[in-house]
């Protein structure tokens, strides 16, 4: 028997439902336009540029690429860097996590601060710092040349220099993910292994590493990815050691070589897709979670062998020294005058605040900083707002294919390297386009923050979806049944619950793109260079002390901003949006996504 539904024709809710859905339909149109204009069309154009010449299918880009020895060498270099970096980063990364979280090492709190310095001392700032210490005029170089007069001042260059910088720059993920993994180990399993006669090494080999295996594989893949797409380090300290990303930048700047740039981007993109597939498969394999009913926190393990213990302590402090030296010197020398900087001497005699005054009160100096803050800030806020709405639509229509497809579109920037996205935008909108309502991206101010935003979308969507999953759906039901409309429920109930995650994401996105160089190099407006561009060009003027001083101050300011942002994300600031202290208890569930089906 069919339903006996008999609603009067003039039922109020039918009409209001249609009109109240008009904003939703408009938003859907906006999504469609955004996806086509910024996610699909530019990337299709990159492919077209490679394979479609003079109206027909062509493989000339491959021929041109294979005949360019410089381009081929850059590909070889990138893969070489990626492979070696996987080994060095994971060795150093695993070691620093074990000495701070697993083994009983004296001064581990201090060491942890040193190893976590890359959270704020990263990207262009880090590269500039290493250049400042190990470069031609660097302190270490001066010390070394005084000890070994035959050493050339430009010794810190090429593959070893890039590898060195990147090894210490890329352990942030270890301190984030592997550290959490070690902290989450079940001490009972370690004790049980010891009880059964395992040595310290056997416990590591048989219990600890297998438990951390999925995280470690993910870290291997991430470090490979970072090596393959390296941009800042090869540009800053690479010298003749050229890699794919800077090469793409070079080829893009010459219109006749753009197809080679596009092909190089495609190679990077293909590698990224393969890595993502491997990573996803790895995530799905096996159960590595503790099945213990009463999990206990891991207690720090003593290294019984005195020689091994001394060796571990020595290496830990040496690494910490390497991590902290550029950072400390950058901070200290930012307070030295030009004489102090040129002589590389730290002395109260040379102490000055002039460098800071010069930046904080000079439009030309603080301009790039303000531009970057504006760009990264706008992009971060809009990315989060946009993805909150998208996630809402996706979650409300979980079972609909169209919602699933829409979601996948927003993950496109994850699959493709940022350079390919930037190149796609240049290729597609170098001239006025109807998709941009007659505008072009050349010389426009908004293209860079927009590209930042595009790159922020996948991770933002993923995290917000996670927050939605941990949101108690009964709260929404309760609000609706109490008479609240869906918009009011969204604003009053759902949004406040998502706010801590949303604010943390704004901060995280902002930090990630504040000192961006890679995208800026492609898309910045000449009148409004970003801080990444400014640091890079200052670093270039090797003998210009003033530029070096400016870079030191920029670095310190960026580290302060980064520090504040991390405080907001992980410190007290993450409680913003909770009106009462005790709500933290409730929020606990929001921070542990249940996972998706």
């Amino acid at each position, binding site marked *: 028997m069919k*339903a006996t539904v008999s609603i009067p024709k003039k039922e109020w809710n039918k009409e209001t439902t249609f009109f109240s859905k008009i904003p939703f339909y408009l938003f859907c149109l906006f999504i469609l336009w955004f996806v086509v204009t910024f996610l699909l069309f530019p990337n299709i154009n990159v492919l077209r540029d490679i394979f479609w010449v003079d109206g027909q299918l062509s493989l000339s880009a491959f021929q041109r690429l294979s005949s360019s020895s410089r381009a081929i060498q850059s590909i070889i270099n990138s893969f070489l860097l990626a492979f070696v970096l996987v080994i060095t980063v994971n060795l150093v990364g695993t070691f620093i996590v074990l000495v701070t979280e697993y083994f009983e090492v004296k001064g581990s709190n201090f060491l942890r601060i040193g190893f976590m310095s890359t959270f704020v001392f990263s990207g262009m700032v880090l590269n500039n710092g290493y250049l400042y210490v190990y470069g031609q005029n660097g302190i270490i170089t001066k010390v070394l040349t005084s000890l070994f007069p035959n050493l050339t001042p430009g010794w810190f260059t090429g593959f070893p220099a890039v590898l060195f910088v990147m090894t210490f720059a890329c352990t942030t993920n270890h301190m984030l993910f592997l550290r959490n993994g070690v902290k989450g180990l079940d001490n009972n399993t370690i004790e049980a292994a010891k009880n059964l006669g395992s040595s310290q090494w056997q416990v590591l080999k048989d219990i600890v590493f297998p438990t951390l295996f999925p995280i470690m594989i993910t870290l291997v893949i991430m470090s490979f990815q970072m090596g393959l797409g390296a941009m800042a380090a090869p540009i800053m300290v690479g010298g003749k050691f050229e890699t794919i990303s800077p090469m793409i930048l070079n080829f893009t700047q010459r219109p006749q070589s753009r197809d080679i740039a596009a092909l190089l981007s495609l190679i990077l993109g293909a590698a990224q897709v393969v890595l993502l597939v491997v990573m996803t498969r790895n995530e799905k394999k096996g159960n590595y979670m503790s099945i213990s009913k009463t999990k206990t926190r891991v207690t720090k393990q003593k290294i019984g062998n005195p020689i091994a213990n001394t060796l571990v302590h020595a290496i830990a402090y040496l690494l910490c020294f390497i991590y902290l030296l550029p950072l400390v010197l950058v901070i200290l020398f930012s307070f030295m005058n030009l004489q102090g900087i040129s002589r590389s001497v730290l002395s109260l005699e040379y102490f000055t605040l002039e460098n800071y005054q010069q930046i904080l009160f000079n439009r030309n100096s603080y301009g790039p900083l303000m531009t970057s803050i504006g760009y990264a800030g706008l992009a971060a806020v809009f990315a989060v707002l946009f993805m909150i709405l998208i996630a809402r639509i996706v979650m409300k229509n979980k079972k609909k294919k169209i919602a699933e497809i829409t979601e996948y579109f927003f993950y496109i920037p994850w699959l493709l390297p940022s350079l390919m996205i930037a190149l796609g935008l240049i290729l597609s909108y170098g001239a006025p386009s109807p998709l941009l309502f007659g505008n072009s991206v050349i010389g426009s101010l908004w293209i860079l923050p927009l590209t930042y935003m595009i790159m922020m979308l996948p991770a933002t969507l993923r995290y917000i979806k996670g927050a939605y999953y941990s949101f108690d759906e009964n709260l929404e*039901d309760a609000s609706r049944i109490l008479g609240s409309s869906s918009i009011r429920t969204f604003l009053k109930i759902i949004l406040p619950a998502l706010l801590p995650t949303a604010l943390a994401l704004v901060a995280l996105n902002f930090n990630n793109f504040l000192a961006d160089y890679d995208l800026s190099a492609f898309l910045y407006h000449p009148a409004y260079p970003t801080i990444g561009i400014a640091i890079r060009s200052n670093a270039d003027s090797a003998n210009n002390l003033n530029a070096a001083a400016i870079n030191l101050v920029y670095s310190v300011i960026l580290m302060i901003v980064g520090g504040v942002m991390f405080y907001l994300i992980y410190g007290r600031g993450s409680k913003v949006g909770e009106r*009462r202290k005790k709500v933290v208890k409730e929020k606990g569930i929001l921070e542990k996504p249940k996972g998706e089906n």
Partner: protein
Amino acid sequence: MIEISNLQVKYDNFIAVDDVHFKVEEGEFFTLLGPSGCGKTTTLRTIAGFIQPSEGSIAIRGKNILKVPVEKRDLGMIFQSYALFPTMSVYENIAYGLKIDKQSKSQIDERVQELATLVELNTAQLQKNVSDLSGGQQQRVAIARALAKKPKVVLFDEPLSNLDAKLRKQLRAELKRIQRETGMTAIYVTHDQDEALEISDHIAIFNNGKIDQIGTPREIYDQSSTEFVCKFIGDANYLEATLIDHINRYLGTKRFTVGKRHYIREEKIKLWSSNTEKMIPMEVQIIDEFFYGTFTTYVCKYQDTTMRIIVKEDGNMKVEPGMKRTVYIDPEDILEYEVS
């Protein structure tokens, strides 16, 4: 008051609720009872408007509400997780629906106070954050919030299942009191048979998406219409064919069909009987005994039938495991079902 007809809820090829009919009268406490996954919560959420049925109708006071949006159905709901808004105080939680109705501040104050008195929350507790309250207090807030707008019907989705046994018992009585005082019509979902028997005016027993029986608690218990209901409600002993044969022989008739399935409630088997004409004696072996304070359960065996007998404890029980003992059954108490 509320009438559910021919209700069906389908998820792709899976039918979660099938051909469900029931009627709840004004001021009645109606319970949907059944094991996990039987469709009772789906039915409740369909009434609330969170799920669209594939077939059927839901009418409140004669008006079909199937196309009326959730927020306009004028229903109250109490959730298993309470679903209290964590960013709001107790007062704000209770006042939430009233604010949506744009009631004046004084009206809201008055109503919140009234509800606080009803659910026994004090003024200080009203100002607290909901996470500062105990589970029982949070449940009281959830009840007050659901009642604030004086809804036509209040829906309860296993509201006591998160509480400990003692508190659950205490709150059941409270719920019944509140229902009596407010005269609300309640539809209550639970899988706890004791809870259902204690507080309901009528119970619908759900089994695999369908309703097996609707009746008063006494009807459901004493005259369970299906084997599933008999086994789900209370505790019943399954009687093997040899015992049924013994009973038929004692009665001298074929009153019970060997081949059908027979049960008897544990408390219906007696250790003593004054009415020897009506009661059928049988000699059993006492196997085990479990003492529960106010009563004792004996496990006994008659040929291949193992039975549990509940006996009210009076301190003079002369029964011990290993003993042979005559027990008595009233044939009227035997429940007979077709083999399904």
